[in-house]
């Protein structure tokens, strides 16, 4: 029994604009997901590679200031971090050639080094965090709403399907951004601060935009695909299974096909694995010196994947109302 019970009282007060309601859904989704201890652990490990690379930047700046050849060694090392056996490996020859010419200015060397680190971050470390992370947080986002009929709670309020999907997508994108965009941008900012002067921004500013573009290239299709899978099942474990299956079987198909494929079918084969597609596209965005074969095909594939996922998602979200 409350200490002071005034009974029912009418209410009048300021009402937030309709366009901001998705933020409430996103906020609740983020708070609920953050309760998972697995997610918190993953988030910790997601930032370790960026910290290590920050230390590499520090070493590079210290060594290259005193000894340019040491700086070049570090630059070579950084290029080796990018998988030379990947489908795109042939394209790295351009960069290797440029390195061998030894006529790089300090600015272009720095640009090369930073972009190599960022490419490594996006290709080699973050995918291994974001795939399991999304596998944990996204499947229950919509499927649990179906199971507990929470859509009645949402859609009996002034909320449209667009607000609902936007809210759920914002929740997923928040976590994706915190393992891709945020560490990469902070690494870039740390690199600028560790460099001899802020004038390096003049030659490296494009990297910040490339980071945003590369992050969005990962975030948008991943968000659409994972939410679509979540909307297809009322049991979140099925959505989770489908999510992991897409990555694992895609990679297995790529490995099998690439061993027995004829020369020249690299693009088709790499499209079998989403992991490879993301890897190639982000590498192409982050390092302008990489020449990728037929990058348009991969971009079209990602755009089509996002569009189809969104269409299915909209249809699925409105389905319970038709019953």
């Amino acid at each position: 029994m409350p200490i002071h019970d005034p009974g029912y009282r009418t209410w009048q007060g300021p009402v937030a604009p309709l366009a901001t309601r998705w933020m409430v859904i996103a906020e609740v989704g983020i708070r609920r997901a953050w309760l998972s201890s697995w997610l918190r652990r993953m988030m910790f490990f997601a930032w370790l590679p960026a910290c290590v690379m920050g230390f590499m930047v520090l070493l590079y700046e210290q060594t290259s200031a005193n000894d340019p050849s040491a700086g070049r060694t570090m630059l070579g090392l950084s290029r080796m971090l990018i998988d030379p056996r990947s489908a795109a490996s042939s394209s790295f020859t351009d960069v290797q050639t440029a390195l061998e010419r030894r006529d790089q200015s300090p600015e272009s060397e720095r640009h090369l080094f930073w972009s190599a680190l960022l490419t490594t971050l996006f290709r080699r470390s973050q995918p291994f965090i974001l795939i399991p992370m999304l596998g944990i947080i996204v499947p229950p986002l919509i499927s649990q709403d179906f199971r507990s009929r929470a859509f009645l709670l949402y859609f009996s309020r002034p909320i449209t399907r667009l607000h609902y999907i936007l809210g759920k997508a914002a929740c997923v994108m928040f976590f994706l951004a915190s393992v891709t965009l945020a560490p990469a941008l902070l690494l870039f900012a740390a690199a600028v601060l560790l460099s001899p002067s802020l004038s390096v921004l003049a030659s490296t500013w494009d990297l910040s935009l490339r980071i945003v573009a590369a992050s969005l290239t990962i975030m948008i299709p991943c968000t659409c695909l994972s939410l679509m899978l979540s909307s297809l099942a009322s049991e979140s474990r099925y959505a989770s299974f489908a999510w992991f299956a897409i990555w694992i079987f895609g990679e297995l198909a790529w490995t099998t096909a690439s061993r027995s494929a004829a020369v020249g079918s690299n693009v088709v084969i790499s499209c079998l694995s989403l992991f490879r597609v993301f890897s190639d596209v982000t590498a192409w965005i982050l390092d302008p010196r990489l020449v990728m074969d037929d990058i348009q095909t991969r971009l079209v594939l990602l755009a089509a994947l996002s569009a189809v996922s969104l269409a299915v998602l909209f249809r699925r979200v409105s389905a319970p109302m038709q019953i």
Partner: protein
Amino acid sequence: MSPLIELVGITKDYGAFRALSDVHLQILPGCTGLLGPNGAGKSTLIKVLLGLVHCTAGHGHVLGIPLGTHATAIRSQVGYMPEDDCYIHGLSGIETMQLAARLTGMQSTEAIRRSHEILDFCGAGQERYRSVETYSTGMRQKLRFAMAIVHDPALLILDEPTSGLDPEERVAMLNRIRILTRDFGKTVLLCTHILPDVQSVCSRVVILAAGQVRISDSLEQLSRLPSPALFVHFAGSAERFHAALRQYNLASHISGPQQMQIAGTAEDHSNLIWQAAAVSDCTIRGLVPSRNSLEQIFLDAVGQVQHAHS
């Protein structure tokens, strides 16, 4: 009184199945009971009112807002309590309430203040801090009701608000509905299968069957019999009383144990009834105008449809 809900020729098809067929309906301020057998189209009608599904034909307005194009504007002024359990995993009662309030546009702090206020009104105690998954049926029912009224809507659509409640909680829930209607001028559309609930709080009733409105009138008007009659509750021999009434030329029939229905009005026949009771050595315990029961009205309305279909 101008109607708060007005539907004209509303038809809703789900593929080949017609859920609502040419529904014409006016809901006036006050409490209206929406009755109908399973599959009558009640849920579809509610979805149409909330703008959750688009009607195939017809038009109408809710609270002066046209149906179809302004669904969010309608839903911001309507509180809907669904029959089905609906909650968000992992949230406590107060968090669920706060979410419901914020989804209608309340600021975060105001939403939590208002949530506590409404949960107090609904009789929820410290269990509001527990996860909703651990709630009993009655507590979930209270929470759904609280979520429906948290933003102080002008129109309340309550779907089975008393199902699964114990008798004490049922009375409390009906009292809350009565308070909202009587003291705060809310219009309530009460969708239920429990007819005594409708009789208890509603002034008007709408009976839907096979997607059509069969009856839409005030309860007072509906419960009047085609020809006046009196209902007598008595103690004594029914046969002797029945014979005595016949002697006074009063048409009567035994309607139950110690119950008699007599044709005519109290003004004309009460003296004769008292005399017949004295002659037959019976004691009259109650003498009231006889009325149609809601159950009878409902069965008649639904029976007409079933008869037409057969």
